[in-house]
């Protein structure tokens, strides 16, 4: 055991000192979220204000975490809540159980449930973690309600995961290349994602080169490359 052995042990440490730093100062700084990010759900409405949810319970049936509770009921004939015979009378999601797998979104036959990119919400009471229709249904402008205990950031409420249904009507999500989509939730363009075959680096979604991009933003004085 010589003195050099001690230094050898620090080899990785010293090497990392001179690498660009990737730690960002969350929550002051936020990384952009990937397009497939699964956050808090929203229950969508049609343009005329009718709810899209028909209370079919397919989301609850497919949910691997058993976090969704839905009960259907007859639409009141005078003031229908949704088009058709049936509407979601009770809709509850328990966010202590939800694993944000998005299977509910895929199961939904009417695109009633989609996910926003919001993930920063916390509760002081277990009961508060159960979102009901009062919290989940979107506002009149079609955007998610922003509740006081939720930390919404720019873009979190845009293009909630409806693109997924629009680009893969058959429910197959692994379509490759750049995909343009339009649907009831808007339109857009989805860049190819890392891992796809024949990916052109120029085409790659920025989010997938996140580490490099983020590193490039770090100023020199903090060990980064940005000037």
């Amino acid at each position, binding site marked *: 055991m010589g003195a050099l052995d001690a230094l050898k042990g620090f080899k990785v440490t010293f090497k990392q000192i001179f690498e660009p730093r990737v730690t960002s100062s969350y929550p002051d700084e936020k990384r952009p979220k990937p397009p497939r990010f699964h956050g808090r759900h929203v229950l969508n409405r049609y343009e005329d204000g009718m709810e899209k949810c028909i209370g*079919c319970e397919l989301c609850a049936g497919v949910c691997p975490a058993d976090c969704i509770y839905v009960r259907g009921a007859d639409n009141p004939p005078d003031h229908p809540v949704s088009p058709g015979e049936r509407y979601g009378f009770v809709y509850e999601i328990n966010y202590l159980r939800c694993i944000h797998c998005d299977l509910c979104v895929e199961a939904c*036959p009417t695109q009633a449930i989609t996910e926003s990119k919001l993930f920063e919400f916390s509760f002081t009471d277990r009961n508060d973690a159960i979102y009901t229709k009062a919290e989940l249904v979107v506002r009149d402008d079609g955007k998610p309600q922003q509740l006081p205990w939720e930390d919404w950031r720019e873009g979190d409420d845009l293009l909630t995961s409806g693109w997924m249904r629009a680009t893969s009507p058959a429910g197959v999500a692994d379509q490759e290349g750049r995909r343009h989509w339009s649907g009831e939730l808007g339109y857009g363009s989805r860049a190819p994602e890392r891992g796809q075959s024949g990916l052109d680096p120029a085409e790659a979604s920025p989010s997938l080169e996140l580490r490099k991009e983020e590193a490039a933003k770090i100023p020199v004085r903090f060990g980064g490359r940005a000037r």
Partner: protein
Amino acid sequence: MTTPSPSPSPSGAAEVGGGAAQAGASGAAAGDSGAAPQEVTITLDGREVAARPGELLIAAAERAGVYIPRFCYHPRMRQVGMCRMCLVEVKGPRGFSLQPACFQPVANGMEVRTESPAVKKAQDGVLEFLLVNHPLDCPVCDKGGECPLQDQTLTFGPGETRFVEEKRHWSKPIPVSSLVELDRERCIQCDRCTRFAKEVAGDPFITFQGRGDHTEVNTFPDRPFASYFSGNTVQICPVGALTASAYRFKARPWDLEQVESTCTTCALGCRMVVQSSSGEVVRHLGVDDEAVNHSWLCDKGRFAFEASTAPSRRTHPLLRSDARLRPVSWQVALSEVAGRLRAVLATDGPGAVGVLGGARLTNEDAYAWAKLAKAVIGTDSVDAQLDDGLPAELVAGLPPATIADACAAKVLLFLGPDPREELPVLFLRLRGAVRDHGLDLVELSPVDTSLTDLARASLRYRPGQLVDLVRQLLGSLPPANPAVAAARDRLVAGGGEGVVVALGRSSIAESEEQTVAAAGLLRRMLPGATFLPLLRRGNVRGALDAGLAPGLLPGRQRLADGGAFATAWGGLPGAPGRGARALLEAAATGQVRALFLLGADPLSDFPDRSLARRALEAVELVVSVEAHPNASSEHVDVVLPAAAPSERAGTTTNCEGRLSPVGQKVVAPGLAWPDWAIAVELAAALGADLGFASPADIVAERARLAPLFAGVTSAVLAGTVGRMGALLPLRGRGPDGELGEWPAGATGGLERLDPMAVPGIASVESQGAPSEAGVVRAAGPVVAAPVGGRMAAGDDGPAALLSWEPPEALPATPPVDAYSLRLVAARRCYDGGTAVQASPSLAALAASPALRAHPSELERLGVASGTKVAVRAAPGRLELVLEADAGVPKGVAVLGAVPPAADAPGASALVRAGDPVTEIRLETLEAG
């Protein structure tokens, strides 16, 4: 053995019935089944398969493990070949051609292909056509998830449609009755519901209308599908066209949990599954049981589960203070009852305590209450019937017949209430027997009933003259008319061998003496005849078998004989107690000071309302163990809330003596307890220990002490016998050496008669893929022929059970009063009964109480049908609406026994208990 080698059935089916088949068939002749015990061999997809001669290809293939898709085929109905889904290739002289498997009986050497390209193409085509107008609104459809159309489309369908045109549109859904909703867009015209309505129920109020692509199922305008059996169409609908309004949007199939059970709405004991979602019972579905219900349920049994969640439900013990029932704790309620009971016992002895009712209880509950009453309190004044049934000794002591015996009888002498009103599914069984093999039905009834059109002879008697008619039938009096003479000749031939008597009380406005005397005559003169008792209310047979009757101990033992009970129970009542009528009479005169009501409602159900009222008013302590408030509640001092059906597990015994399980699916609301637990706690409050910590303890003690229940252990109940139901006493040995009743001719094994008839969570497995998985049916042993195994007391039975000695003396025939009408009072299916009134779907169906009489009586009175008249009888005067009914003979009037509204006049207001007949006089009301 009439079956070919058991199909390569999966573990589930084999475990339940496979072994039983061999045990049952060994030595047992196939009975008098029509088919010769031979088999044919067919080639099914290149495999040699055995089949029964005459069997339909679709059934033979299914038993061989090849599921042929189908929509219209139902094994309990005639095949129609409507849907064309079951097309298979059958080899004929010109090679293979497509044939509907549901219309093709098997023949020896038949070659069948079920998976060839031609069959596949036909299936694709049929499904594509069926879906042309189907709205595909599966997400909002109640059937979605358990839908044969969905499942079979996924398994056999083309996956795509070439149809791009606009689909057919109807308004949806439309109510065809207050219980059933119809969505014509979803209908695939399989003819199942319409066939059921016409062929099985005999209520063809829904039919196909229109033609071609405009064909729809519908009712006549403003004539709803008013059948007692409409709910069955919902169960057998292979799409979501017919849905039950009680289940509408309540749950999805994948939410449902289920348990096998037995309906206790009436004494027939139909097998069913109880399905719940989120801890609430949401529907009942019929299970196919060859012995009892052939998969059908009546609407009352199907929808009365709503009562258990009714707002009026008893959830807390209540104690009357300041003239009001107030919630108290169990501790307070029980100590109050025990304290006041001790005071009564101290001063007047156990004879001053009575127990009424018990038909709502399970067998185990009834046993616990019998022990509490007879061993702890020491009273024998216990009666599960309210003077509206038959003497317990008669029920237990007559040579028994099963329902299947009745359907296969040489002559069925039906002497009882209208089965469609009181035992609805028995009506379906009898109707089926008349339709399928021309059952010789002879009906004795004071008025026209649902059987009148089916019977070969329907003989009328005036109330009070039943014995005279029976004597004519037996040849001891000259026949009044040729119909009686003809029936007599068929009846008495061969000493009554093969004759089954369905025996019940057709009217509670008559005392039981005529019925008992008629039974005695028939027993003596037709020694070969067997008897099927037609009792009122759910588990009344089980309550009687558990000793809830005066002079009896559990297991059809006489109190006087005591048996093992005398020592094991540590003392028995010294003298036989009072029956319901004597008990209430004694109560009215102050001899009985404490009365327990086990779900009994004397004010509604006892034939004499005024006696019941006087009794309840006179008794110091009335304790009601009940799940729902009823008319008698205003006289009750303490209410002990009890668990309702589906809230406790146990067994029940139907009117033929068949033991079958009742399952627990949900927990009782609030503080309601199972009845056995109430008995145990009450005994503890009285300082006694019944020795039961669970129903299993009751089962064990009962098997040890009561000869009828010998061998009915917890293990047996958990096994095949308990799940399939078995006649008591158990006879023979099952596959595991357990005692069991294995009927002659049993082919054994569970057969999925109609995989689509038991939808629910098993649907996905039971349909589509040729799989035997997911059999939820736990029916009795499937028999090729009607059950021949008639029970003879002592025949390999563990012990001789009591027999009934018919009385020698005949009752006097009451003289006819030319100015009076004789009242006939019987229950209707939908009436003021607690279960109906507490179920929102059914309550509105209860008919208003109207007095019905022959049109000539109205003419004589000079009033039109629908007029209110005064009705005078011994106990008092009533004002009732009088309606003309040609089905009521002259000199007779009919009134419902339990009116739908508590304060409305019912027949019991006109009846004086013990009178042989009830004479009423009609008077017009003064104008103005």
